[in-house]
């Protein structure tokens, strides 16, 4: 299939970027989106230009490295998939595709389609861990946990930290990511111990990174490749209120 691609090109964080148009003539519908980008880069290199920089790693939807906003949607039009899992069969011959980086104050553009998502690392460093001494690996059934709680903790833990929630939110809010990490630990006995301190420090760090506030549009959850539930945000809000009223 033949495609017209409009790709955001930006030399570095200090330089103003712009959309640049490219044409690809022989795209197979069996290619993944990132393979199509590889083919485009090959064409650009052969023409003597700088290839397009974009994040990618595992290419099987689990590392959270790939990003890109494709036709206005993080990770593209297919729900519940990352960009690397998106295939060109989702597009038609003759389509125009707009490819942009995730846009948020907390995710500054490094180059082209690459953004700096280290803000998420700093949020995790502020409290997204269990600091109590856990000792050696205990027996799996040493601490009884209700099946429903274990399932929900696991669901929250499936967040790969890609940042699509921020990219899709009209307010560039990171609350789905932060709440998933908080809920994942709060639902388990080992993590519950520090829930109040954790929620306070992670929310403070989230605000310091310049992310927006949640207005409950639900776009984050709808665009999340792992389908993280909005209920995690409600849980985080409840924990934050509780910790504000009773800090210890």
């Amino acid at each position, binding site marked *: 299939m033949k495609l017209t691609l409009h790709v955001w090109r930006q030399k570095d964080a200090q330089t103003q970027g712009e959309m640049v148009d490219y044409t690809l003539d022989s795209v197979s519908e069996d290619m993944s989106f990132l393979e199509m980008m590889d083919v485009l880069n090959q064409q650009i290199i052969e023409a003597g230009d700088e290839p397009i920089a974009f994040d990618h790693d595992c290419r099987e939807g689990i590392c959270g490295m790939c990003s890109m906003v494709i036709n*206005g949607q993080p990770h593209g039009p297919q729900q519940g998939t990352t960009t690397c899992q998106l295939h060109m069969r989702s597009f038609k011959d003759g389509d125009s595709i707009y490819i942009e980086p995730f846009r948020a104050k907390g995710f500054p553009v490094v180059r082209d389609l690459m953004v700096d998502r280290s803000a998420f690392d700093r949020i995790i460093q502020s409290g997204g861990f269990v600091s109590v001494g856990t000792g050696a690996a205990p027996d799996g059934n040493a601490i009884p946990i209700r099946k429903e709680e274990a399932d929900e903790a696991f669901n929250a833990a499936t967040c790969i930290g890609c940042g699509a929630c921020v990219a899709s939110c*009209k307010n560039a809010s990171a609350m789905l990511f932060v709440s998933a990490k908080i809920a994942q630990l709060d639902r388990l006995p080992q993590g519950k111990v520090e829930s109040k301190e954790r929620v306070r420090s992670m929310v403070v760090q989230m605000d310091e990174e310049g992310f927006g506030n949640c207005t409950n549009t639900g776009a984050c959850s709808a665009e999340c490749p792992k389908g993280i539930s909005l209920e995690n945000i409600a849980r985080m809000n409840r924990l934050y209120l509780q910790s504000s009223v009773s800090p210890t």
Partner: protein
Amino acid sequence: MAFSGLFLILFLTQHMTINLLSVVDSLRLNIFGAEESNLFNQAAYFMGNNPVVQFALQPVLIAGFMLHMLMAFVLQAKNAAARPDGYQYGNKARAYNWASMNMLITGGVVIGFLGLHFYDFWIPEITAKYVTGKAHIGDSPATEAILADVNRFYPELVHRMKYPWRVAIYCVSFVLLGLHLNHGFQSSFQTTGVSQGKYVAGIKKASIAFAVIVPLMFIVVALVHFFIS
């Protein structure tokens, strides 16, 4: 936002209940042939003259509304700053509904409507009672008598609702209020952390029911007085 919004939802329910009394009055007077029906007058007189309502609840209501409005603008400014450069193609992310993405627009229409509503009812009432009224009550028995008349509220309401343009503005505004409420109601439970597990579906249904019934009842009040009273 959530707490002030829930507070305003309570006020709206109370306002609707009193307004519906005027519909009961209208139906009794115009359909069922009653010679007298003063339910709305009595309720309105109580609200307009009870010191607790006037000097305790009314200032709290005004403060709650101002806080809700102020926080909406602060939130909007902070959220706009969180994405200084927008998408060239536009943000096409899937969202729940139009209302959730446009609360500032629906809220703005409600503020505009409140301007008309205050011009119609609240400003003349407050001016007569606490501004000009005070100066003239002593030497103007007519003003004093009008203000003391328990039965003046219903005719004033009916008179206002006899203008088609005003009824049309009221109806359109309440449709947009419904959209604002539909998102705001469920959103407030999400923000306060109540929306969890088995409650989520119920809260969404209650939100839709509230957002349909309350504005519809206000529209019914306007239409009944326009067509029947």
